[in-house]
């Protein structure tokens, strides 16, 4: 049984604490209205008050708070993902502290005891603040990782530039994950459109190192396995020099400096000719 007065008061006044906290959250939080949020708050308050005991109130690092920390972490991560600001996420916990302290000040009359007890509660909550911070960052990182995946998908469009010719402009870094997406898209489009020529334009790739080169070579080989030819275009002069310095052999690959010249090559291969139209003027 707990004999500490603060522990007793707080456990008994759970409803009051929740009410006070809700009011404070509504004031701080522009979005506060959903039932989930109420549920989150009840979960957190319950786990906090359950964890509070004669022993844990004296030690903010007690393992007794593990469950509370877990709940708080989950709430912080989910808030970050739902687009709450760091301030809103932080004030969630701090408004809880205010509610606890308010209840204490209503119940404890002796100012020196009140001061000591308030300090203990403050220490415990402040110790949890760092978790809110960590949880929030983790949530944001998850969001960023998801966005990166989405960008990878949308930034690898395969364009049908001519009957039998597809082009794929690559913008940004060609890492292993991206190459996989690029290659899959390209091969699928070659099959779907029945194309015999694919143009891979790398003008938007900032640096061609040996890994990027290896990925390009792999993509070209895969294209050839499908019976299509692959042209790499957009090799800037400085990139061409560096590829040579690195010792990368691209001699088996058709390379062109611009997309236009790659298209010209494609036309030649398809035995197509682009001519200026002869305009004949007739007097009427």
């Amino acid at each position: 049984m707990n004999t500490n007065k603060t522990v007793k008061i707080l456990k008994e006044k759970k409803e009051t604490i929740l009410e006070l906290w809700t009011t404070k959250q509504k004031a701080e939080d522009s979005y506060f209205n959903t039932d989930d949020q109420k549920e989150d708050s009840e979960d957190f308050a319950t786990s906090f008050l359950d964890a509070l005991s004669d022993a844990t109130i004296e030690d903010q690092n007690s393992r007794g708070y593990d469950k509370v920390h877990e709940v708080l972490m989950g709430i912080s991560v989910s808030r970050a993902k739902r687009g709450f600001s760091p301030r809103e996420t932080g004030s969630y916990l701090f408004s809880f502290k205010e509610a606890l302290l308010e209840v204490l000040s209503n119940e404890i009359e002796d100012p020196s005891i009140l001061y000591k007890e308030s300090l203990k509660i403050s220490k415990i909550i402040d110790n949890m603040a760092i978790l809110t911070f960590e949880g929030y960052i983790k949530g944001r990182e998850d969001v960023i990782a998801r966005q990166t995946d989405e960008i990878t998908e949308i930034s690898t469009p395969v364009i049908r530039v001519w009957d039998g010719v597809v082009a794929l402009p690559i913008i940004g870094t060609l890492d292993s994950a991206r190459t996989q997406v690029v290659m899959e898209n390209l091969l699928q489009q070659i099959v779907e459109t029945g194309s015999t020529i694919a143009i891979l334009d790398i003008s938007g790739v900032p640096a061609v190192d040996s890994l990027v080169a290896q990925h390009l070579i792999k993509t070209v080989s895969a294209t050839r396995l499908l019976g299509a030819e692959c042209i790499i275009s957009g090799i800037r002069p400085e990139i061409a020099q560096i590829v040579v310095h690195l010792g990368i052999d691209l001699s088996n690959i058709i390379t062109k400096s611009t997309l236009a010249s790659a298209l010209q090559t494609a036309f030649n291969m398809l035995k197509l000719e682009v001519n200026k139209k002869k305009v004949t003027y007739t007097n009427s």
Partner: protein
Amino acid sequence: MTTILSKEDFIIVKEQDVVPFRNKVKEAAVKIGMGILNQTKLITAASELVRNLLKYGGGGMVIIESVNNGRENGIRLIFADKGPGIADVSLAMKDGYSTGKSLGLGLPGTKRLVNEFDIQSTVGMGTTVTIIKWKNG
């Protein structure tokens, strides 16, 4: 005498650290007025070494420095990891040698792209590669 004008360090532990790091190298190169060709050489070299640091060294630290040798400014990059190290450095420096099923051109290619190249490696202790690209080098 090489004097250090400014210095910044980065912890590299995951694939996602590569692009921001490379952008920092570019920023440093632009700041000293390095031309586009040398810039691209430096960035490509940095890219090779940071990939090695991640893939073989299990991550580590990179220091980006602006330096001066009395005649011109340059960028010095130091890649340090506490990975397994390289048993035979001269073999690792050979074109086409790779224990990672890749092209084996990272180390020898990097050496050709920069002005100064130094590699120190101890098995079980880690690897440190230092490169300098001078502004007009």
